[in-house]
């Protein structure tokens, strides 16, 4: 039925180019149920106007007229009776073949139904054929919309009421912008989802923060006042709405214990955690990628085995134990580095960064090895070698770039784990970052503080992954070509 796709594109040169792309974009978007509904909702005024035009135009539509004519012609020609006889005959033959009992009445009913279906199909086919011959298009709502969108007058008239609708169409006109826009929307969805999930878990907790903070001696009135101050007496949906609103307006109120502004506290603590993670990340990348490449170029040698064995050990060491051993060795016995972190002392961040980066280092080294190994067995590397390029050039020019793509994915994925794992490292080295803040607050449980901490970390991770995805879209030609054909 959908003739929008294969409709012949007739555009007079007078139609501005932008408008024809606009109309095409609409046609494409209209094929996706979700986008269809989204457009209907935000572009309701435009839809109402074009629906009225549709109703008017439908009256003298060629399709309807043809259909009626052909339907009548076929009925008069006795096509229906022929079909019924044909279907009865078919069924009789089938039943004799399978040696089933023949029930005349039922057989007739079935035959009539099938004949009716086939009859309508035949009529439809004939109409389509006729339409195609005449070069006319079947009038549907979508086709009306498309032709209206090519009219400059219509667009200008409906531009103000349908501003949102046109903005959406413009966003979808360019594949890159469309891709970025869609990723942004899904990130937004994830952030709201995380806030909802974390808040709900803390809400259904059997613990009572008021009783925990005020102590066992608190009277009922004291607890009621506490709950009123922090809005804990309000219904679930109100609290949830306030929490989600708070996340986006950076106002989560005061924490239960200590009565400090949660967002301020988080803003004070997040930089040190990010700095720590960043140093660990750089350290891991700088050390692990060369190791992985050396391992891959000398695969199955003694060096390769040793390096990968060390990497596997790195994956298996718990952060906190490694931290303790480092403190024991480098601070207590050798006294090279301070055991705890002091802001401003660059020496004191070395150990935490190494400890936090070890797991990532091991993962990156293993990933680099396997992806480089995979790439250097590709055909294009053999081609490069056949061209007479030297090994170094092959490795850096042809192999490394392609091997890098899965490595970046791993880095993006592990970054989240690192921000989470920072809680443990921060506790070992006594760093007052966001991780140890959440851990300290969870005993109460201090709902706004925990939620704020976790959600802002999740937002950071989502944004980093968003950035990596967008980077990919520009770097990786495979994704680029996939993006353009949607």
């Amino acid at each position, binding site marked *: 039925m959908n003739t929008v796709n294969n409709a012949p594109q007739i555009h007079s040169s007078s139609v501005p180019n932008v408008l024809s792309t606009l109309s095409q974009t609409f046609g494409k978007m209209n094929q996706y149920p979700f986008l269809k509904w989204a457009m209907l909702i935000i572009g309701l005024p435009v839809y109402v106007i074009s629906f009225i035009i549709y109703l008017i135009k439908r009256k003298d539509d060629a399709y309807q007229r043809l259909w009626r004519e052909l339907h009548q012609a076929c009925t008069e020609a006795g096509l229906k009776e022929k079909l019924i006889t044909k279907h009865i005959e078919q069924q009789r033959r089938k039943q004799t073949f399978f040696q089933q009992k023949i029930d005349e009445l039922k057989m007739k009913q079935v035959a009539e139904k099938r004949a009716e279906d086939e009859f309508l199909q035949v009529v439809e086919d004939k109409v389509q054929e006729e339409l195609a011959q005449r070069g006319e298009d079947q009038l549907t709502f979508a086709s009306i919309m498309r032709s209206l969108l090519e009219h400059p007058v219509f667009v200008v008239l409906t531009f103000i009421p349908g501003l949102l609708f046109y903005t959406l169409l413009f966003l979808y006109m360019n594949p890159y912008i469309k891709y970025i826009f869609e990723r942004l929307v*899904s990130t937004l*969805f*994830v*952030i709201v*989802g*995380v806030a*909802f*999930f*974390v808040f709900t*878990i*803390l809400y*259904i*907790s*059997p*613990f009572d923060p008021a009783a925990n903070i005020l102590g066992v001696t608190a009277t009922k009135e004291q607890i009621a006042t506490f709950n009123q101050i922090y809005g804990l007496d309000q219904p679930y949906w109100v609290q949830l709405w306030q929490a989600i609103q708070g996340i986006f307006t950076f106002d989560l109120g005061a924490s239960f214990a200590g009565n400090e502004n949660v967002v301020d506290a988080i803003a004070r603590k997040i930089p040190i955690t990010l700095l720590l993670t960043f140093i660990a990340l750089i350290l891991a990348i700088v050390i692990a990628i060369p190791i992985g490449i050396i391992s891959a170029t000398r695969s199955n040698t*003694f060096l390769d*085995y*040793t390096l990968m064995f060390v990497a*596997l*050990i790195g*994956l*298996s*060491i*718990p*952060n*906190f*134990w490694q931290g*303790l*051993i480092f*403190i*024991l060795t480098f601070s*207590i016995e050798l006294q090279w580095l301070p055991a705890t972190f002091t802001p401003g002392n660059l020496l004191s961040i070395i150990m935490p960064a190494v400890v936090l980066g070890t797991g990532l280092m091991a993962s990156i080294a293993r990933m680099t090895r396997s992806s480089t190994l995979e790439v250097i067995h590709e055909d294009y590397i053999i081609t490069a070698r056949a061209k007479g390029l030297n090994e170094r050039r092959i490795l850096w020019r042809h192999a490394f770039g392609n091997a890098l793509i899965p490595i970046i994915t791993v880095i993006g994925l592990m970054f*989240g*784990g690192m*921000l*989470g*794992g920072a*809680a*443990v490292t921060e*506790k*070992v080295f006594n760093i007052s970052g966001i*991780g140890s803040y*959440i*851990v300290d*607050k*969870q*005993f109460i*449980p201090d709902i706004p503080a*925990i939620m704020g*901490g*976790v959600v802002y*970390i*999740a937002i950071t*991770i*989502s944004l980093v992954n968003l950035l990596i995805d967008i980077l990919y879209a520009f770097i990786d030609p495979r994704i680029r070509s996939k993006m353009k054909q949607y």
Partner: protein
Amino acid sequence: MSTHKDSLLKKFALKATSEYAQANFALVVSIALTLIFLLAGIDFSTGAIKPVFFSLFIAYAVFSIIQSFIAYQVKRDLKRDGVIRSSTRMWGYFQLLSVLVGNIFTTAFAFGLIKKKKSPQYLFTMFMLMTQFYVIAVSSLNLFKPYVANTFLMGMFLLLAIFVFQLVVLLLVIKDNGQLSKWKLSVGILLILTSLTGNLFALALGLFMLLEVFSKTPSTVAKWYAMWEKIASNMTAMLGLFFILFIFSLSICSYWTFDYGMAVDNNYGATLQMPSLAYPLGTDNFGRDVFSRIVFGARISLIVGVLSTFIPFVVGGILGAISGYYGKRTDNILMRLLDVLYAIPGILLAIVIIAAFGASTTTLVIALSVGSIPTYARTMRANVLMISNMEYVMSARALGASNLSIIFKQIVPNSMAPMIVKATLTIGGAVIATSSLSYLGLGIEPHIPEWGNILKVGSAYLESHSYLAIYPGIAIIALVLSFNFLGDGLRDALDPKLD
């Protein structure tokens, strides 16, 4: 012609013979351990010698020297003849003695060296014996304690009896020529019974014997045999499996051979004792025996690790299968919902759940499980997407199979391999997460002996009694490393690309 073939054989003999690579591996690890014991055996500040570690150093050094000699012999044999001579193989019997000092690497190498044609049954039997031997050895350390558990004698006697039985099995397996023999049925059943001590090598061996007896189709036996052979020939994977099963068996046998009171009851007469025969790893600030605590902690680590892998395996697997099979809108909705879970780092999600429901073992298992559902779902979805386009699925659909039967009979069994590999690799992560959370005071209740809890106590005495923090950490690393080795080995064995 034949001389050409011979020279080719010699040329590639070094690379083609697994013994050579294994000899080197065992040698390197052995030397590394020797050096570690040397460093631990000398107190550098005073120049004094610590007798225990120093004697361990000497013992390891001896076996490392022997190992290097064997490795040299193997290399020479392979270069000269292309095969290992039987006189070199005889050295394997001598190297078997390294089991006495606990060098499992050279011991495992010796197993392989002794026999020229190694069937997986033979290797499994050897590892079964080694597991049993070490369980008995570690349990018998309790003899030095002031008192032992009531069931200790009975337990030890049973373990020894099983050990003798397993020796008999070894003889039978060596003599086995692949023909169907009468003893296989009874021995197989007995082996399965002895695996109740946690020695799952015995279970695998027994099941395989029963399979040989009962299976009508030789191809089923051959299929299992091929997979076994792959895993058994991978020495690091077997060593990983060995250590996991050793810990598993030890934590089951500890019900009889260890005294729980030693691990949890305060004994203020013996606080913070240095390691001795009665307290092999010393005592903590409440006078509790750290050695017993570590043994009992293994239970928790294994249970939590396995459960918090199994639950997301099932839940994530089902969600992923549904999402991949039905596709379109179902897929979209499920995956977007799982994206939300995926955006929160595992440890933080666990902290949130524990903050809401309190620190306990059950909460911990649930908290760790929820966080890893999305990864399993994604893995399963990818597999299912690939497999549901295969011809055999189409043919099942054409034959009129229902959706459920297609999912459970065709798709799920064929997409299990990557899931199993992933599960093995993530158990290690779960063990680390458990102890990390316990260390933060958010995991297992502090009075229960668990590796993270022991470490937490130890971290307070880092300066004066560092061994309290070192030994439980080594236990964690060894277990996690074993799971990672096993996972890597399984991946190599199950990956069809490497065939």
